[in-house]
């Protein structure tokens, strides 16, 4: 399973790209593989305020429903409209076109507390 070194991760199998001011969030390759074909995504409106751990959306596959959890405190800047129209992008390109939202962190330093690629790799290897 691909776990890009430049990203940060959560225990709920989300990735966070903190290389820009507003951080981009998606689900990992491992998560999409566990879900199977994604057929529906429910994402929040821009302007939604989140506290880390809040449920901010849902990803549905044919067999299951998974909630999305805010990785950090912040505000939704943009939701990926392309993925709402074509949820299969989450399967085909989870770290690229299958991104979900961009969040403006309330506290940019919070991202540093997330898992790094090595720690996440260990998590999914159990």
């Amino acid at each position, binding site marked *: 399973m691909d776990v890009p070194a430049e990203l940060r991760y959560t225990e709920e199998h989300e990735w966070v790209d903190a290389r820009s001011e507003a951080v981009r969030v998606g689900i990992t390759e491992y998560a999409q593989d566990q879900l*199977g074909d994604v*057929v*529906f995504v*429910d994402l929040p409106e821009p302007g939604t305020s989140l506290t880390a751990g809040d449920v901010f959306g849902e990803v*549905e596959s*044919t*067999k299951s429903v998974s909630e999305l959890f805010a990785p950090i405190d912040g505000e939704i800047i943009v939701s990926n409209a392309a993925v709402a129209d074509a*949820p299969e992008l989450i*399967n085909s390109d989870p770290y690229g076109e299958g991104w979900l939202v961009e969040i403006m962190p309330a506290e940019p330093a919070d991202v540093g507390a997330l898992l790094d690629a090595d720690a996440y790799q260990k998590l999914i290897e159990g």
Partner: protein
Amino acid sequence: MTIPSPLDEVHRELGAAFTDFAGWSMPVRYGSELAEHRAVREAAGLFDLSHMGEIEVTGPGAAAALNYALVGNLASVKVGRARYSMLCAEDGGVLDDLVTYRLADERFLVVANAANVDVVARALAGRAEKFDAQVTDRSREFALIAVQGPNSADILRAVSDADLGGLKYYASMEATVAGIDLLLARTGYTGEDGFELYCSPEQAPALWRALTEAGEPHGLLPAGLASRDTLRLEAGMPLYGHELSSGMTPFEAGLGRVVKFEKEGDFVGRKALQARSEQSPERVLVALAGEGRRAPRAGYAVLGPDGERNVGEITSGALSPTLGYPIAMAYISAGLSETGTALTVDVRGKSLPVTVTALPFYQR
């Protein structure tokens, strides 16, 4: 500890994702379950169903024993044909739904759901006691491979000289496929033409590989249990544990026609089922269709059109891969079961408008 399929190694080579199903470790999908679903509708899919149970009933009294044990008239089934039936409790509750093949005058093969094999084997043995019949659970002696989809006959023809034209729907024959002697049946659970091949576990990997090779030019894909579930749902076929359970009779499920009161002699559940057949059930199984992409799922509450009163519960649901909109089956109050009735489903706090529709959702 889960039981591996006789095809476990083949599935691992194919990179399958596995699921625990009634104590068995079975492939849930190989790649994309939507692609596997589509392959079965448009070309063909190859399924491992080795978890299903096979129980043999033999002897001069086999037909009479089955007529007493099951709600259907198995004695009227001709040799070489098969029949869908149910095993009911004394109170009419459904213990399992079954396909029974009559292999010879005095030999039947009863195919049970994996989760119910022990219940079925025990019930059949107990109910057959006063008949001149033997009941033997042969589940571990059979692997079961299904080829389903419009191209399945072409695929079988490439590896067998069997007279497929003469093999009707719900019929079976002894055949040689890819050099392997097996029981070939024209049955399935997908709503498509297709075949089920009962062979020895030892020969299953060779058979699977031969069918894979023969199927390649015909668009055959290995298909897992995820696609099997969406295929049977589109075809409006009930799944034990969802649409069927010991808490309800065949009449609530709209399958009262499988109960053959006119057959000779007593059968287990006759009294309770007779009484039930003369009343209107309080709740009935219906088909629901919605809009959008959000699927009702098993256990979700069905509410009235006002979104208030709880009128029932979803038993199975999915975004239909073939139709592109949400479909479901549900038990609801009988007064609301008419086709066209508008209802809502509570999808995790959001209400999804649905309409009662006719089964099946999809017909080939």
